[in-house]
């Protein structure tokens, strides 16, 4: 029995981690003007943030084609996979899971779909847990139960520097945020249970970081965490320092530069945190 894990590029897993755990990452698309790029492959993270503010039109994103999933599933089956767990960005925020479902319907390969109800490293940490369990020889049912439990403990926070990108994304009921673009406001958003929610609207950077740490800390102890940023390396290292007491001993989570497909909706200079609470 060989179980393989498939996810999509919005998972933000560092390439080395994905390769080591044999996680297959299907790239989403990032569209800039009339050009379309495979997320993280044809358009690297560094390049994207370097050029982001110069793009004539704001970038948009698209789910991978269902055919890309079919292809990946069949290739993994050819490599000897008997079971595939395909785990993806929250279906309430993206069409990726639906593309995967359509892709799975077009093949004989047995695919178990899983909605991470999260994104970025929230999804990444779940995929990582699943891959580690598979490497340990756990059964499909075990791994699916593990995911079912972990997904309820997975939180992603992001402190945005600007609202523009999220507003344009159409991913949120903007009016319900009760927040316009008239004032300079740093929104602290949280993704949990597949829903992106406004947690705080903050005016100053100092208070914003304080609030974010407060919100992260009040949830409890984490078994896995990741730090995220969209081209704000200095700030994220500072955040790591401030969050030191919440980082599980022995783990040295990388400060992940968020992939273009997610960065397109978040905008530059955002700080983020993904964590799975201890059971």
């Amino acid at each position, binding site marked *: 029995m060989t179980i393989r894990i498939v996810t999509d590029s919005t998972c933000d897993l560092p390439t080395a981690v994905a390769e080591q755990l044999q996680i297959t990452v299907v790239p989403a698309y990032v569209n800039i003007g009339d050009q379309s790029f495979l997320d993280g492959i044809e358009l690297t993270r560094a390049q994207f943030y370097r050029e982001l503010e110069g793009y004539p039109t704001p970038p948009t994103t698209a789910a991978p084609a269902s055919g890309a999933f079919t292809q990946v599933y069949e290739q993994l089956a050819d490599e000897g996979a008997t079971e595939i767990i395909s785990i993806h960005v929250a279906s309430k925020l993206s069409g990726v899971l639906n593309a995967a479902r359509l892709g799975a319907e077009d093949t004989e390969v047995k695919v178990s779909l899983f909605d991470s109800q999260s994104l970025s490293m929230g999804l990444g940490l779940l995929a990582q847990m699943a891959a580690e369990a598979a490497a340990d020889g756990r059964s499909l049912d075990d791994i699916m139960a593990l995911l079912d439990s972990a997904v309820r403990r997975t939180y992603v926070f992001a402190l945005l520097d600007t609202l523009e990108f999220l507003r344009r994304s159409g991913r949120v009921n903007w*009016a*319900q*945020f*009760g*927040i*316009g*673009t*008239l*004032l*300079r*406001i740093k929104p602290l958003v949280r993704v949990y249970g597949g829903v992106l929610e*406004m947690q*705080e*609207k*903050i*005016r*100053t*950077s*100092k208070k914003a970081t304080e609030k974010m740490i407060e919100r992260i800390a009040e949830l409890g102890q984490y078994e896995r965490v990741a730090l995220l940023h969209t081209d704000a390396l200095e700030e994220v290292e500072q955040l790591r320092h401030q969050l030191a007491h919440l980082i599980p001993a022995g783990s040295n989570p990388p400060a992940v530069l968020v992939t273009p497909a997610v960065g397109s909706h978040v905008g530059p200079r955002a700080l983020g945190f993904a964590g799975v609470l201890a059971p």
Partner: protein
Amino acid sequence: MTQEDTVQEPPISQKWLTCDGHQLCKLAQAGLYWLEHNCQHVNALNVFPVPDGDTGTNMLLTMRSAYNRIQNGDEAHVGKVAQELSQGALMGARGNSGVILSQIWRGLAKSLKNKAAFTTVDLAEALQEAADTAYKGVMRPVEGTILTVIREGAQEAQDAAEKSQDLRFMTERVLERCQQTLARTPDLLPILKQAGVVDSGGQGLVYLFEGMLRYVHGQLDETENGAVAGVTAVPAQALAAPEEGDLEFPYDVQFILMGEDLDVLKVRADIDAMGDSTVIVGDEKVIKVHIHVKDPGEPISYGIRHGVISDVVVENMQMQMEEIIHTAPSQAGQPGSPTSAPLADEGPAIEPGQIGVIAVTAGAGLGRVFRSLGAAALVNGGQTNNPSTEEIFQAIQDVPTNKIIILPNNKNIILTAEAARDLSPKDVVVVATRTAPQGISAMLSLDLNGDLEAVAESMQALSTQVVSGEITRATRSVTLDGVAVEEGQYIGLVDGRLAVSASELDALLSPLLEAMAVEECEILSLYYGEEVSLAEAETFGEQIEALYPDLEIELLAGNQPHYYYILGAE
């Protein structure tokens, strides 16, 4: 309590032992008339050298709303008339003094509820109840205000009731005591002494009582310029405010009827049948007619048939109301401020079960900011333009949810908002913001789907994390909070308190920013008013930047009247 005692029309019979509904109606009408006549005098008693809420106008509109409820009635039961007056005052209350006045009527009505007519003992009790209710109407009662005036007036009534059963005696004593108390208000409230004025709300109440007593004495026609013996003198300084004479009203008809052997009672009855808000006073030679009618021709024709008319005034009341609401008397010569701020379409459509925020704002730009932050509705109002309880109440009723938070954004509107809250069956919380930046700061913690109490609490907490600055011009010379200002000088307020003054705007800026302690802040929001151009505002912003290079400056059109700039520092 016989009919004979109560049917006499003014001057009320020598022995006035009971007062029925008809008489109370006439008393209220006379009080309203006299308050209206002296409205500008009350407005002139303005402590703050900034365009402030107009106490006279606010009390007048409150009292008019009260009287409108009974003007068409023919109710003999005094308890029922008082009830109507109370209801009308509650709905029309605007401004702090208006709210307190409505509480006075509420107390009176409560005490008189089951009385067909009242005696001196009843009135003394009712005045006591009125005073008690008025005190309960404010969070922190302050002596030296209308509260002290009504309380001491009520005490005097108790004393008078022990000495005589004559209501005339009692009203004379009460008025005299109220006038004495009013004269003492500067001794009780230092801010009044500093400003050299008596309390404006107390003065309004005295005019109200004075009008009633004048009616009792049949003297209501001796009203030229309000300069009648017994009227509390208004300091000359305070009279520097614009004086436009009698108020004039659309669909409102006033004239003086002159003739021989005129029958005041008959003229009153005839004219009264034509419309409402009737005030007919005078004698067999001269009668002053004031009435609101559908057809102005009717009362005028009537006057011509019975004598010679002069001083004819016919106006549209609606226009007059708008003028009161939208024109700043202290800014004469300025074009009227814009009417209600149009709703920016950026705001949310509130759904039932969510929290609807109602923000009181002056200026379309500020309104847009509130809407963009999730306010469900705006009520136009601010300095010189306090919205009524009814306007806020209406906004509460109109927002399609039962969970409401009101942001008054002005210290003079907090009580009105609370009165509107008390009237509404909805769950309403007033977050007592005193400035626009406080309200905007509070909006940041609005969670439309949150728990009402919890959200209100966090909004309250957040509202205090901003330092507010306001720049306007002094409407008169005064020394307040240790700051001396000359009329016409620029003044800067910090969190609503006078902090700095200067003859030039440029010279005001640096001390104001210092007083706001902006060096500890990251962001300064600069809302420029309707009298300031974008270019001027940009220059102003650059000056701030030069003083505080690390400060992030956010320039926004507030479009607010009177205030050149409103600043919020965080």
